[in-house]
């Protein structure tokens, strides 16, 4: 067992070392003869794969323990210790983190393999893999960290990698701007996280600031502080997981290479917020208000993103909004205290969304970086493997039983219903329908009908096997992952939920069979309606529609970006420049300038008294003497 605990430190270390190594290799060779891509490809995959293997070992080790004692912890070193603040660089593997660990390393490895093909020919090949490895390492730190501060290291680390990878094609300004946006918006969230941590620390952190100690002491926390902490941490989560109001960065983040979108902006990083809320379930469970806020923000985000998703024309943007939307579901889940449901959705989502992105990547790859769906069409015949896998992914996303998405989404909706959140449930069902609609709109437009751009169509073909094999593996995952947590009504025993139980503080709602059936039925109906509409409109080929009215409004994403620009970015810049153009010279520096001007004026003025007539100097003396004499006479009285 002890040995396994030691692996915990190694798991993030491998990808991180890989990143450093690849990065240095790249930096020192890129100006001369670039190394062959194979070298990078192999080096890049070593870290994630090793991490996955170790993750499996950890999983096995955990499984061997009694459910209540299922945790392994490993302290690498004392990180910092000042006064009552004592932070260890320590890692914790419990069922929750182990689950995350498994799928992060698994999907991460797959996407690395896929990228070997996808990134071929790029001149910054090495850089890409360095960043990807760095990302994976950071993500693992995030997942494995034994306390909020260590988690924050990973939290910010993945943000950094996200920034670096979004601005990967850095010659294009818009890409870099998208990267900046991602980083800055994430930072807004991180501020919340830091503040939340700080309040938490001054609440109960003095006895140890890792999850286990916090969980043990959580009852000491004052309710008001607990609420503050929950909300602040959730601010962090909205940043990282693209929830209202900080979701705006994620669609722009699609500027990065597609594997990045798959790995970071769909499967792993963006779910960190959900993971974090689940991690703090012991805290959220005690504060119902916070949970409700989380749930409502989540479901509203889901709705909003679904609306946007229906009108997108960029294949990756469609998927991006669907990601936001699904993240909304997850938050709705953890918000209604169905932590395991939320996490389970994270798990399944990782498979099918990564699959969809990689599939989209294959399409884009085949069409020479064409992303507009209205320039595609009829690719079914040219790219059968991609088509099939993507349909599996789409079905999973749309929540078609028995694909994985169905079970996880249904679990969430059922929990909402069972805990009495009818509004959330209703919106959730609506969004489910919309999801089915826009997903299949994309599938139909891209793969069905007639090719719209014949030139591109001619050259389109299925990707090499290094890219398709991961697709197939993911498709299997998307198909079957749901079965892991088969609810009782289908004869399952909710393996995942039970596995997660020791890590989470949740009470499974018992809404009864009726509610369960109601939830399932509603979902299925919504799915069917959604897919039906999509089929009617796009099933047989359609031309790029012209939007007007609400559709136009939605097409422009409700002008939220513009609004933010108007009310935040522009005023910010205006304040910035007014500070150094107006305030600094006229207000802050004015006293200094005034003093120096006065100084000079006085200096010149006093020259006047030096008239040069000796008589006048004598007069000064006598005047001075006169005044002194007067004062002296006065004082002598």
């Amino acid at each position, binding site marked *: 067992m002890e040995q396994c605990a030691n692996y915990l430190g190694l798991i993030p270390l491998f990808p991180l070392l890989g990143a450093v190594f690849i990065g240095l290799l790249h*930096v020192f060779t890129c100006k001369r003869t670039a190394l062959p891509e194979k070298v990078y490809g192999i080096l890049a995959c070593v870290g994630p794969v090793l991490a996955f293997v170790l993750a499996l070992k950890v999983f096995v080790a955990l499984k061997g323990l009694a459910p209540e004692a299922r945790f392994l912890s490993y302290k690498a070193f004392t990180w*910092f210790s000042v006064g009552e603040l004592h932070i260890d660089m320590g890692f914790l593997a419990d069922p929750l983190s182990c689950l995350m660990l498994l799928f992060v390393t698994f999907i991460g490895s797959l996407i690395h393999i896929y990228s070997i093909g996808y990134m071929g020919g790029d001149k910054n090949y090495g850089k890409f893999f360095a960043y990807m490895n760095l990302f994976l390492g950071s993500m693992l730190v995030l997942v494995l960290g034994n306390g909020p501060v260590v988690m924050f*290291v990973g939290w910010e680390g993945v943000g*950094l990698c996200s920034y670096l990878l979004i601005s990967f094609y850095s010659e294009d300004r818009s890409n870099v701007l998208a990267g900046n946006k991602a980083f800055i918006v994430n930072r807004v969230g991180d501020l919340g996280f830091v*503040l939340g941590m700080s309040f938490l620390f001054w609440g109960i952190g003095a006895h140890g600031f890792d999850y286990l100690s916090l969980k043990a002491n959580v009852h000491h926390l004052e309710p008001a502080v607990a609420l503050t902490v929950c909300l602040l941490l959730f601010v962090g989560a909205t940043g990282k997981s693209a929830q209202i109001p900080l979701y705006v960065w994620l669609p722009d983040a699609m500027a990065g290479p597609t594997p990045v979108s798959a790995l970071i902006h769909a499967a792993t990083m963006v779910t960190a917020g959900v993971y974090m809320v689940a991690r703090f379930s012991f805290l959220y469970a005690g504060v119902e208000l916070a949970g409700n806020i989380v749930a409502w923000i989540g479901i509203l985000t889901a709705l909003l993103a679904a609306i946007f998703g229906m009108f997108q024309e960029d294949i990756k943007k469609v998927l991006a909004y669907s990601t936001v939307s699904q993240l909304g579901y997850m938050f709705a889940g953890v918000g209604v205290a169905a932590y395991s449901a939320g996490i389970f959705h994270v798990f399944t989502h990782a498979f099918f969304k990564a699959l969809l992105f990689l599939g989209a990547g294959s399409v884009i790859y085949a069409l020479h970086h064409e992303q507009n769906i209205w320039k595609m069409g009829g690719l079914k015949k040219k790219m059968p493997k991609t088509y099939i896998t993507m349909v599996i992914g789409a079905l999973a996303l749309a929540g078609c039983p028995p694909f994985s998405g169905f079970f996880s989404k249904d679990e969430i909706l059922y929990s909402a219903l069972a805990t009495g959140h009818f509004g959330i449930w209703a919106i959730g069902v609506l969004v489910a329908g919309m999801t089915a609609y826009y997903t299949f709109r994309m599938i139909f437009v891209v793969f069905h009908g007639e090719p719209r751009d014949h030139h591109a169509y001619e050259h389109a073909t299925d990707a090499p096997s290094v890219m398709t094999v991961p697709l197939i593996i993911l498709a299997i995952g998307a198909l079957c992952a749901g079965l892991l947590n088969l609810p009782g009504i289908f004869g399952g025993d909710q393996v995942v939920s039970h596995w997660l139980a020791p890590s989470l503080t949740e009470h499974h709602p018992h809404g009864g069979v009726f509610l369960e059936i109601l939830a399932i039925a509603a979902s299925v109906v919504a799915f069917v309606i959604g897919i039906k509409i999509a089929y009617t409109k796009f099933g047989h080929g359609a031309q790029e529609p012209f939007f007007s009215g609400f559709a136009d409004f939605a097409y422009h994403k409700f002008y939220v970006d513009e609004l933010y620009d108007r009310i935040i970015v522009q005023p910010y810049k205006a304040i910035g420049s007014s500070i150094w153009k107006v305030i600094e010279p006229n207000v802050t520096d004015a006293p200094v300038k005034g003093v120096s001007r006065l100084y000079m004026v006085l200096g010149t003025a006093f020259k006047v008294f030096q008239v040069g007539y000796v008589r006048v100097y004598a007069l000064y003396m006598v005047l001075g003497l006169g005044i002194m004499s007067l004062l002296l006479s006065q004082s002598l009285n």
Partner: protein
Amino acid sequence: MFEHVLSVIIFLPILAGLILLASPASRTIARFTGLVISLATLVLSLELYLRFEATGHLEFVEHISWIKSLGVSYSLGVDGISLFILMAGSVLLPLVYFVFGTKEKGYYANLLIVQGAMAGAICAADMILFYIFWEVMLLPVFFMLGLYGGPRRLPATLKITLYTIAGSLLMLAAIVYLGVSYHAQFNEWSFAMEKMAHLNLTGRVAAVAFFAFMIAFAVKIPLFPFHTWLPDAYTEAPAATTFVLSAVMAKIGVYGVIRFVVPVFDLEFARFAILLAYLGVIGMMYCGLAAITQKDFKRMLAFSSASHMGVIALGVFCMNIQALTGSIYQIVAHATSTGVLFLFAGILEERTNTRTIDDLGGIAAKAPVFALYFAIAMLASVGLPGTSGFIGEFMIVLGAIKFNTAIGVLAGTTLIIGVCYMLWMFQRVFFEKTSSRSEHFKELSFTEGLVFLPVILLIIVMGIYPHPFLSKITPSTALQFAPPASVVAQMPAANAQNYGLTIEQK
């Protein structure tokens, strides 16, 4: 190694600098001398660092009585607080000689003098000695700025000089006031810093003295609204001077607050801490906002430096051990990040002949190593976890939250504000398309790359494994919060038990 290591660290560079100034040495010789001397200083400081025992009290003490009748003495010593500022200077200054190889003799000589003077101010254990070094360290800056600065250097030189001297002369009055008060209360003349903590100062004059100290340090730090000299000076100064100013000298201002204001004026400090903390926060936000639309990257870094100094100062004003330790840690982090960024800015300016951000672009493609180093320093400066910048900033925000929620929250915004202008600048300079100016940008040479490597590694090591560093700081900072016996005695017994609390509530 030997007894007077601190004196050697102080006077070796000063003497070498003076001899250089007086001698007809060529540039090459001057540079070489500077390099050798600063490396020797570095070796001595490292040795000092390793032998440092972290007792919390002054170590390596040297004491020679000077003006007996006034109790003024030549006494030196370092504790965990000063050690790190000293180390920051010793580690970073040799870089300059590597990076800037074609400057005039006076440039190197002045650098040496300023290095020694700063070491003196840091190590001085006597207030008068401190004051002497404090003033002396301004002179080389004055000359470097005036002689080798940019086109608008004269007003900048005058402003920084007069501003700083004005501040510090008031401090002189306050120092003397302390000495006289000590004489009055203990019937013994002394200007030793550690003894001043025993003083029992009350009344209006004490408050005035407190502000005299505070203004002197606030100008140096610079704390809002005493920062207005900074943008001009930092921009116009030659890169090495800006580097010295931001990396070490500004820190001595913070150090002064920790050394003088906190222990001596505990009551006034407790009274005005909230005000000062607000000034720190406002300065951070003000300068951070001002940085965002700068067109000149050096000016932008200048504002950024001021912004960070606001946070560092805030850490001191929060009056708890986390924030204070964070401040000291951040001092080193800031020296290694922003200081090095100023050096990089100097390299950029030297190689492209421009300071305008818009004139540049695409440098990352031309010089990947440079971009990597720059990026690491920049990330440290924005406080990314895993770099040195995070530890300090986190502890400061943490401490600020404990001190005052509003201040803590505002202090946290440094996370956002810092990242905005930095990314914006990085994007324009390093990303995007190559401009005509940056077309022929030369990558760092092998030596340069090698020279910067230790600092870059230090940034990362300090971020990942700060414990060994912190363990040398904490004993000293902990002492700052240990209630002095005399004060406790005067308090009611109930209050004395939670002394820390009472101070904060005031």
